[in-house]
């Protein structure tokens, strides 16, 4: 079995170099902060990149899907499960987290499919600007629904994971931070395996490559695209869960900036490339945290979008290159 340079060695090399540089510049404590933030960005960036890969739509509502996910998780925790504070029994905690995570991901998956069915599918053959505008419209619809349901002020999320920390290499790391990063990595690996090793994954790849040909080969295009939206929204939902658990507070307009940064991450890694999106998420988080460490918090967003512009100018296909079909 030969090792494919493009698919394996280059991502691993870029990922390792990026992580080592981050660690050297930030130190243990801030590195942990950057990784945690990166986990959230990466989970959202995956959704942007998957949707772009398959229908070439920049789904600007995706940041808001993430936001809705955080509210859904909050609602499940408070209203359905009646939680209000830390759960100290480890077994209970694992059980509750699994329930919240599973329910939110499935719930968001269906919301993602619903949006695709009614907002994007009717416009699939329209000029490309039409679905883009629709995406912005969906973004506002989601924000306004949440704003009217939960109010425009920040809403507290019960922090069911105790905020305990352990000493590690000169810093203090929260168990929650570890959980978030591990969860993100596990979901990313699961996604890679799904796309690379299953029938549905193959259908997704073939649809991305050449939709008409895939259809001629018997791939159900509508179903494949719907599943892509399901997975993208489910990942955003997982991001929403950990966003709430980590920050303890969510707001209806949370998705806009986070979504924009995750989009930047997707472009940075090479849009359409899932590994690239994950690495891009961690790099964007690093840029943001590093700007803060240097004392330029006000400029952190400028730094993030400067990175976007530089990438578009000098390496328009992103760090790992785009993975798109013939028509792209």
């Amino acid at each position, binding site marked *: 079995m030969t090792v494919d340079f493009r698919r394996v060695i280059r991502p691993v090399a870029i990922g390792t170099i990026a992580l080592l540089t981050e660690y050297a510049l930030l130190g243990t*404590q*801030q590195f942990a*902060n*950057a990784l*945690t*933030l990166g986990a959230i960005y990466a989970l959202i960036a995956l959704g942007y990149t998957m949707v772009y890969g398959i229908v070439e739509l*920049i789904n*600007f509502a995706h940041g808001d899907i993430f936001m809705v996910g955080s509210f859904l998780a909050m609602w499940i925790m408070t209203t359905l499960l009646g939680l209000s504070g830390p759960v100290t029994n480890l077994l209970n905690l694992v059980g509750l987290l699994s329930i919240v995570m599973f329910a939110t991901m499935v719930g968001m998956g269906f919301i993602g499919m619903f949006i695709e069915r009614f907002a994007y599918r009717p416009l699939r053959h329209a000029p490309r600007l039409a679905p*883009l505008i629709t995406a*912005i419209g969906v973004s506002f619809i989601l924000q306004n629904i949440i*704003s009217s349901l939960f*109010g*425009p*002020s*920040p809403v*507290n999320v019960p922090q069911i994971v105790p*905020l305990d*920390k352990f000493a590690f290499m000169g810093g*203090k790391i*929260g168990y929650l931070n570890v959980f978030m990063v591990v969860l993100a990595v596990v979901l990313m690996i699961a996604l890679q395996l799904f796309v690379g090793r299953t029938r549905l994954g193959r259908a997704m790849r073939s649809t991305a490559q050449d939709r008409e040909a895939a259809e001629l080969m018997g791939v159900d295009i509508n179903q494949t695209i719907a599943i892509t939206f399901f997975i993208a929204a489910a990942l955003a939902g997982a991001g929403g869960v950990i966003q709430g658990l980590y*920050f*303890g*507070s969510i*707001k*209806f*307009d*949370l998705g*806009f*900036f*986070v979504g*924009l940064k995750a*989009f930047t991450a997707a*472009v940075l890694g090479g*849009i359409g490339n899932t590994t690239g999106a994950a690495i891009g998420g961690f790099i964007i988080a690093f840029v*943001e*945290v590093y700007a*803060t*460490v240097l*004392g330029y*918090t*006000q400029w952190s*967003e400028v730094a993030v979008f400067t990175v*976007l*512009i530089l990438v*578009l100018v000098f390496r*328009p*296909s992103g760090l790992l290159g785009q993975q798109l079909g013939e028509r*792209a």
Partner: protein
Amino acid sequence: MKYGKLGALGAGALLVFSACSGTTATAAPGTSTAPGGSSAVAAGAWCVGGTVKIGTELPMSGGETANGAPTANGVKLAIKQQNAKGGVAGCKLDINVQDDALNGVHDPQTGAKNMQTLVADAAVMGVVGPFNSGVAKAEIPISNGAGLLMCSPANTNNGVTQPPEGDTYRKTNPTKISYIRTASPDSIQGPSAADYLYKDLGKTSVYIIDDTETFGVGVGDTFQAEFKKLGGNVVKRDSAPKSTTDYTPLFTAAAALNPQGVYLAGTTPTGMGLALKQGRTVSGLETVPFVGPDGVADLGPGGTQGATITIAGAASHDVYGTVGSAHDLADNTFTAAYTTEFGGAPGAYSAAAYACAQIIIASLDKASATATDLASAREGVRANAVNSANSFTTVLGSLNFDKYGDNVHPFISFYKVDMTLAGGKGDWTFVKQESFSDPNAQ
């Protein structure tokens, strides 16, 4: 080419159109029958339709509810009590409520639009508000041009009134100022907090974070200058815009410098509530005092929508705050009347808003003697209120204003959070108050 398009689309998405959500609500005044005592006087010809209005221009919704709603209630109470006495010179009072919160956070453009609405309503004799200094700077040029009095219970930024910056907001009528305020400016509020942290709490080093807004930067600067003057060490100063969601890296970097206290220079709706909540979780900052200005010390108990303690939750312990108004009132019937009327304790600036309404009422009473129509009554209110020779008996004590519109007898009250109050959710308790002299007397 394709990627160029992608970038352009990304840029296009940044141009987001937000719908404005200014609301106009006209609340009916309380009782309209004059009880015994002053006999009902027939309203003069100037009082068109038998009713004039006091406007309020405050952030009323979303995260700002804990700021604006109790403040507007102060005005509602004053109007109700005045109408019970038969109104002003036989003319009944009504209220015109404007909300400058956009998506739950105060917004200068919305405030400016609201001020245009109030100016256009000829029955509005004076306006109580705004709450936030950044909003005031957008509104004063409009009220100055129209000659409509604004009395702010809560603005504290020095540049709102004081030259050279203050002059730029009253260019249309430089000699006819239209704005007065009862709160202490930040040249008093910031240093008071610094004195409190350094002398009363005995902390010699501090980390300062501001919200990049007019008020936050201003109060942060004055705090920083005073803390240094006292011999304290400002370990770091950061500015984080209100769009910030992750304050952890900021506080992690600051915690490495071992500050003994934190100053939150800003308001809770613009991020200081989240900063408190997240900063507390950072190693080394679990128990240090967090001190905030009136934008943090909203005096809302835990559970009130948008209140600091509600947002920060269990992180609200060891939190202190300053308010640019008196706590011990000259008229101690106010608190009881307020609680009876609205079923809760007054907010940080309820009494000050009540005082502003009293000033507008007293000025209108004086102006009604010579007024011939609504426009001349409005101008009379403005001229009487800003006249530094006039002093007003209010709930805060006797007030008069200097040539820039600043209160010549400002107060600072100090509060701290007691987590055992409000059924374990926490509430603010009064610590002490101090009085100061005219901020522009030097």
